[in-house]
């Protein structure tokens, strides 16, 4: 369980700076350091056990359904990285205390730093691939925060964004790779995966897995062609660069290579991809490290170069190369962290990082000069320092690489070239900055940094020297343990010693040192040569790319989302017809097995009229009134259709609704333009006609296909239970008010809401009202024709009586609340039309809103009533009652429910029409006024 502490303590540690914000900066630094120090102690506690070959693990379930466990392991590789991350992390905490100025929030810095440390520790100790990926993404996010720490600087923001984009995208590739591995192996458990080498390598997905995992590693480790983000991450404060680009962030990529080395390596694919990328990166980084004029830029490119070297070593596919790679990870971390810190001191004390201005600093800071010189020498591979040892191993391994056949000599040749460049830029870092004349107009007068700012560098340099002199004692145990985790099977015998005798690698080292010196002396020629080329700023091209991407997105959005409802409608309908048609394609034959019913002349005439009226509606659609008249013909014939096909309830409803709809549309038309201007181009009309025709064709085919096939309807249930269950003979009505009463309740609620919404929409509506018709003839001053109003008044009681009759018989014969309500509403509307709103309003002195609301309430309460009898919502009951005079009558609670429907329909319909009618009256020229 103590393993959990290694990750958990730094995580808690990220809250420490927040809690200690009120203390002095030094106190905060000490407090922040406590928890990582304890974590380091925990790692040390496990060290002997790990060296003995044990792998302590711990596993707690987290999201079992995703097979994501909080599983950690501490093998040799993890231990090595834990030491690096925590050890250098502690030094960085100390260093940052002096580096950051009073204006920088040290609390925020430490918070981000600790979060990042947690993420790194999580990556290196995860025993579950998904957990590893989780921490992997966490490093991307927290490094984003760290790189963009000086968020006021545009360069910091852009650099951070670029790092996040590249490493984040790589992270997604890694996730895909991990998911594939999980798919092949059947587990995300790292221990299981590491044992499934053959399974993965024989899988058809091996190539995909390899590419995806390598993409993750290469983006993180800034390998060519993804190296461009790293130099721009130098916008971060130097402690961040020292941490991220020596021991952690970029090392996560090579850690991944090491982690998956046992399962993915050993194939030709691995060799060619990894060595090629590594070699290219090695040379590319080394060359640009020589060119850059920015102190941190030099270090950034040298980091890229060294990461290339490590990648190249992993690519060699030999055990000793893997050992060398792991060894170089340690060495690079130590000398590069100290170099970054030295660069930070120079920057801090001189106020600039421009190498052209920085010269002869040894007079001002001799002590720092010595430290930086030793670190540079280690980077260059000078004997007696740790960098020399791993570089020797690297050169030796490059000689052993035989995969290129007869051209295999290219690899050691290029490796030597890389080493020459490495010596040259190391020399440049020391000679150009600390010697080589006098400083030129520095913003500050340089001096030695505070004592404790130097301490972290001293510690690291000490390690460099000691490892360089006594490798066998100091580094062999941990290197052996780490290698055991990387190289499958029996670990190779590692013998580190300073002196291997005169051999080829030593000669190559000698060439590198001499060549590097020569290249450095001839550097002006190289600068001149390089100046002929147009320099590409990666940040600018990246920003341009982002801008372009945004433009492309904007363009494609504009294509679809241009604000035109017509266009949306078109796409929507096109999609719909696509879906509908796709169903038809699967039907082998359009016509079904049902016997087709004969057609008679009445039907043909009706059908033809219906079609002609519909076509007439669109032909005349620009003369709106005529179009409306055609529409009413269509509605009438639809009503007749219902009647013809045995649906009297529908026919009655349709008839009543038709009347109300046409009155409504006529009223509305009064306020709208009488004509539609010709706007559509010929192409648009053709397009719409095509779509409409296709749509009609598809719907007709669908309809035909369905009605010519026998249906297995659930209606039998309703037919059988209508009388015993619902107490009514009219099945349609019983379904509405009983079986599907809940639906009906919902529907009348919608009706009521529509009425209320319309009432609100008409509120304070100001509209232009024409005083004449289309041809300019004024409206007739005779507003209320005598015949109409005499008839309407006579008709009203009769109509209401019919309405009541239809309502009452509805449960057993065609009729019911919907139809009765509509009939009553039509009768009242007739009064409005005949006598005008004012006259009617005086006599019908009640609002319609409460009627509609009452209707919904009655229906709902009827439903609730059944709860009193411990029955489910809307259970109906009925009984027969003997009423004097009338005789035996059947009363059902469903009738009460239907009353609710009835009232809602009347209320809502009149609310809509009467309110619309009111709008007309206010300003209209009338006879009375004249």
């Amino acid at each position: 369980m103590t393993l959990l502490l290694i990750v958990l303590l730094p995580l808690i540690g990220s809250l420490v700076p927040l809690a200690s914000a009120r203390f002095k900066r030094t106190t905060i630094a000490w407090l922040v350091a406590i928890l990582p120090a304890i974590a380091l102690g925990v790692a040390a506690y496990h060290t002997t056990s790990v060296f003995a070959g044990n792998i302590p693990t711990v596993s707690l379930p987290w999201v079992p359904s995703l097979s994501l466990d909080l599983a950690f392991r501490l093998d040799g590789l993890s231990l090595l990285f834990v030491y690096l991350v925590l050890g250098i992390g502690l030094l960085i905490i100390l260093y940052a205390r002096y580096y950051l100025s009073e204006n920088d929030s040290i609390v925020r810095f430490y918070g981000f730093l600790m979060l990042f440390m947690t993420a790194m520790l999580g990556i290196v100790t995860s025993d579950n691939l998904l957990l590893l990926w989780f921490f992997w993404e966490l490093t991307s996010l927290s490094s984003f925060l760290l790189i963009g720490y000086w968020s006021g600087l545009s360069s910091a923001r852009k650099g951070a964004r670029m790092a996040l984009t590249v490493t984040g995208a790589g992270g997604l590739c890694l996730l895909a790779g991990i998911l594939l591995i999980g798919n092949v192996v059947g587990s995300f458990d790292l221990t299981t995966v590491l044992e499934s080498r053959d399974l993965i390598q024989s899988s058809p997905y091996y190539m995909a897995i390899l590419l995806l995992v390598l993409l993750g590693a290469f983006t993180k480790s800034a390998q060519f062609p993804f190296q461009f983000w790293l130099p721009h991450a130098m916008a971060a404060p130097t402690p961040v660069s020292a941490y991220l680009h020596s021991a952690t962030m970029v090392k996560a990529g090579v850690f991944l290579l090491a982690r998956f080395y046992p399962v993915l390596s050993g194939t030709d694919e691995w060799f060619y991809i990894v060595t090629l990328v590594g070699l290219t990166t090695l040379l590319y980084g080394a060359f640009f490290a020589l060119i850059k004029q920015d102190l941190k830029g030099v270090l950034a490119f040298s980091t890229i170069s060294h990461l290339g070297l490590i990648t190249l070593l992993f690519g060699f596919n030999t055990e000793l190369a893997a050992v060398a790679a792991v060894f170089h990870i340690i060495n690079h971390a130590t000398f590069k962290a100290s170099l970054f810190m030295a660069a930070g001191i120079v920057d801090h004390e001189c106020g600039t990082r421009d190498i052209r201005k920085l010269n002869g600093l040894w007079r001002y800071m001799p002590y720092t000069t010595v430290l930086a010189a030793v670190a540079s020498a280690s980077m260059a591979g000078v004997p007696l320092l740790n960098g020399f040892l791993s570089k020797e191993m690297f050169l030796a391994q490059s000689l052993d690489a035989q995969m290129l056949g007869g051209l295999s000599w290219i690899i050691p040749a290029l490796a030597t070239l890389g080493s020459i460049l490495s010596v040259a830029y190391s020399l440049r870092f020391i000679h150009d900055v600390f010697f080589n004349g006098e400083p030129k107009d520095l913003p500050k007068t340089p001096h030695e940094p505070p004592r404790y700012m130097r301490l972290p560098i001293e510690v690291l340099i000490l390690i460099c020297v000691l490892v360089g002199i006594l490798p066998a004692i100091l580094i062999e145990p941990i290197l052996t343990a780490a290698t055991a985790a990387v190289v499958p099977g029996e670990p190779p015998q590692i013998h580190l010693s300073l002196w291997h005798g005169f051999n080829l690698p030593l000669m190559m080292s000698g060439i590198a040192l001499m060549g590097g010196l020569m290249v450095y002396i001839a550097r002006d020629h190289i600068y001149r040569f390089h100046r002929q080329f147009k320099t590409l700023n990666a940040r600018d091209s990246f920003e341009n790319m982002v801008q372009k991407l945004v433009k492309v997105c904007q363009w494609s959005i504009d294509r679809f989302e241009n604000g035109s409802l017509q266009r949306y409608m078109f796409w929507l309908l096109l999609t719909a017809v696509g879906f509908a048609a796709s169903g038809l394609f699967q039907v082998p034959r359009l016509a079904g097995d049902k016997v087709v019913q004969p057609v008679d002349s009445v039907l043909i005439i009706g059908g033809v009229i219906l079609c002609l009226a519909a076509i007439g509606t669109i032909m005349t659609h620009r003369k709106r009134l005529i179009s409306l008249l055609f529409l009413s013909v269509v509605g009438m014939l639809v009503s007749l259709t219902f009647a013809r096909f045995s649906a009297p309830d529908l026919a009655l409803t349709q008839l009543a609704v038709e009347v109300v709809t046409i009155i409504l549309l006529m009223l509305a038309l009064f306020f709208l333009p009488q004509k539609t201007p010709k706007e559509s181009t010929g192409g648009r009309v053709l397009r719409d006609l095509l779509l409409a025709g296709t749509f009609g064709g598809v719907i007709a085919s669908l309809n035909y296909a369905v009605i010519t096939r026998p249906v297995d309807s659930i209606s039998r249930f309703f037919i059988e239970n209508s009388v015993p269950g619902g107490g009514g003979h009219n099945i349609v009505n019983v379904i509405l008010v009983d079986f599907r009463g809940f639906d009906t309740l919902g529907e009348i609620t919608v009706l009521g809401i529509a009425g209320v919404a319309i009432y609100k929409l008409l509120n304070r509506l100001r509209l232009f009202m024409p005083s004449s018709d289309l041809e300019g003839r004024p409206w007739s001053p005779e507003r209320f024709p005598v015949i109409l109003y005499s008839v309407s008044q006579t008709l009203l009681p009769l109509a209401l009586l019919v309405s009541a009759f239809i309502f009452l018989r509805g449960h057993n014969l065609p009729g019911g609340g919907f139809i009765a309500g509509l009939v009553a509403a039509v009768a009242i509307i007739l009064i409005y039309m005949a006598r005008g709103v004012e006259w009617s309003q005086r006599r019908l002195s009640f609002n319609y809103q409460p009627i509609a609301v009452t209707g919904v309430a009655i229906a709902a309460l009827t439903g609730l009533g059944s709860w009193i009898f411990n029955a489910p919502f809307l259970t109906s009951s009925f009984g027969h009652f003997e009423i004097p005079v009338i005789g035996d009558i059947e009363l059902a609670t469903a009738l009460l429910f239907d009353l609710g429907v009835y009232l809602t329909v009347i209320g809502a319909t009149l609310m809509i029409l009467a309110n619309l009618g009111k709008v007309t009256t206010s300003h209209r020229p009338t006879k009375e006024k004249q």
Partner: protein
Amino acid sequence: MEALYATVTGVLTACGIYLTLRGRTFPVVVGLTLLSYAVNLFLFSMGGLASKSTTIVDSSFPYADPLPQALVLTAIVIGFAMTAFVVILAMRTRGDLGSDSVDGQRTDEPREERK
């Protein structure tokens, strides 16, 4: 008979769709009304086309499928409510924006016409 019925539904649908694609509110409302007729006819026919049938229990005729009828009956009423809502919305749009274009942007009527 089935073919005729399906054809009529198709023609109504096509006409409705065409009008729905117009650029002014009123034709769109008319189109929606046509479309709702088509939809109602379509749904109604899902139970098959029954001549000389009934949905009344204990009558001497065979049964027609009552379920699509019940569904369509409420659909007709709801359809009316929606048509009403849309047409009033169109009026309101014209009142507020001075245009009856569906996109509510083209003001092609002189402003003094509006009160």
